[in-house]
């Protein structure tokens, strides 16, 4: 079976982002970009399923600007077999990405789509669920364990207050949580090999998808800064402050 894995190019996890002075957005000039961490987990999971002989092919997909090619090369260095770039300069929102993936699912016929549960830039947490809806497929979000057997997926999910296990038929969409796996580091030979793997580029119009944004960002602002308080000398002073000044205990 084929597995499709969408990967997003985002501001690196370790970068402290800055709001542009004119409030129009985030300053992305000269900022390090990387693959969204949850998508790395998704690629890793798909590659492990291939290594276990369950998947036949892992296809990485990225939607966005030309530079998303780098993100696809990273996915292929981890072990994806090929990449598809849906290239556009338009700001892509989750519904548009879900529709692009829907069109690619029609073409590639994967049995499983594994995606990150959320991207760490817009923190939307929508695309996987939207794709599942558009395909009328079952979904298992926030997965911490995935077992594929007998045409079914048994997925343990991280939910508020604990864990639950769902059994869903295939094809399906699974979204990854942090504890699903620890992605491997791409080795130099694999990075070199990834450069030779096929990377196809298509445009949203080729897929017949209208990617016009539904939400307009009117402004972006800095949240109110929390100022540092005081250092207390010892536990007695701390308890005194909490009781008499802050009045929280």
């Amino acid at each position, binding site marked *: 079976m084929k597995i499709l894995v969408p990967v997003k190019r985002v501001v690196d996890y370790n970068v402290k982002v800055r709001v542009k002075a004119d409030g129009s957005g985030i300053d992305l000039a000269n900022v390090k970009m990387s693959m969204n961490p949850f998508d790395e987990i998704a690629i890793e999971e798909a590659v492990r399923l291939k290594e276990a002989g369950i998947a036949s092919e892992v296809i990485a997909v990225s939607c966005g600007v030309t530079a998303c090619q780098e993100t696809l090369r990273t996915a292929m260095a981890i072990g994806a077999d090929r990449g598809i770039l849906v290239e556009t300069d338009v700001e892509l929102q989750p519904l548009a990405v879900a529709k692009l993936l829907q069109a690619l699912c029609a073409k590639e016929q994967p049995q499983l789509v594994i995606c990150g549960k959320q991207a760490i830039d817009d923190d939307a947490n929508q695309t996987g669920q939207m794709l599942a809806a558009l395909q009328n497929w079952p979904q298992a979000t926030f997965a911490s364990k995935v077992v594929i057997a007998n045409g079914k997926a048994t997925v343990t999910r991280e939910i508020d207050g604990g864990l639950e296990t769902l059994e869903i038929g295939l094809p399906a969409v699974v979204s990854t949580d942090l504890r699903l796996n620890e992605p491997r580091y791409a080795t130099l030979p694999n990075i070199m090999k990834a450069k030779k793997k096929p990377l196809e580029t298509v445009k949203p119009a080729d897929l017949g998808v209208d990617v016009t944004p539904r939400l307009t960002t*009117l402004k972006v602002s800095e949240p109110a800064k929390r100022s540092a308080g005081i250092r207390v000398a010892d536990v007695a002073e701390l308890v005194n402050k909490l009781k008499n000044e802050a009045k929280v205990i």
Partner: protein
Amino acid sequence: MTILVIAEHDQNSLKAATLNTITAASKIGGDLHVLVAGTACSGAAQQAAQLQGVTSVKVADAAHYQSQTAENLTALIIAHAAGYTHILAPATTFGKNLLPRVAALLDVGQISEITGVESPDTFIRPIYAGNALATVQSADKIKVITVRSTAFEPAITGGNAPIEAIAAAADTAQSTLTHRELTKSERPELGAAKIIVSGGRGLGSGENYHKLLEPLADKLGAALGASRAAVDAGFVPNDYQVGQTGKIVAPQLYIAVGISGAIQHLAGMKESKVIVAINKDPDAPIFQVADYGLVGDLFELVPQLVSAVG
């Protein structure tokens, strides 16, 4: 305008985040309906009917709503969506799992985790782990929204809305819940606790985490939380995690023990009213947001604190 709030509940009562979501809905204005879909869920429906601002409670009672799967709840919501201008749910794992599925079938975008309502079509939401706030306007005819519970007060009782049964949708049979294991605890839920005692990698081990923090949490009637580092190190389960990818909390008092204060952790707790940090590293970033900082060895300070608050 007519707003539909999807209730998260355990059949007998509403989950706390549902009450905050109802307050967010009230700020949009208009009629406010609450959908309670479940199995023998009249307890939750009656609680919803008594909340201020609620004008109608719709109950869909059927066996296939017991496990609250996204597939079945989506089919139900879509069947009854006509006439609603807004559909809201709490931004919990329940709402995050469900609502994008609804939005896609309505062919509308979703506005995730709003923290403010500017007007019926304009909302504020955090992006980049809360390091920026975006004001977004939706052009869609139905606004589908998840609500960050810590940004809104819980709705209070004092209403008396009619309860109306609505038809269940057919069972999609796409997903079967085979097991659910909720962490059993006498302590308050992280999302609803007034005081949270939270531990990080500085505790060194799961054993230390429990030995040091549980007595303090017991004394204060607090919930227990953890940083991602502590979860990754296996000290505690993931549902303890506070941060960008865990729970967002805003208690009256947040005590961070052995937590350095990575951006992703701060994103989950910096709206707390009072923050206390205990850490041996005087340069730890957690001190930049702490109201009261105590530099020193947590293995000595935490037991002292337990005796002192008694």
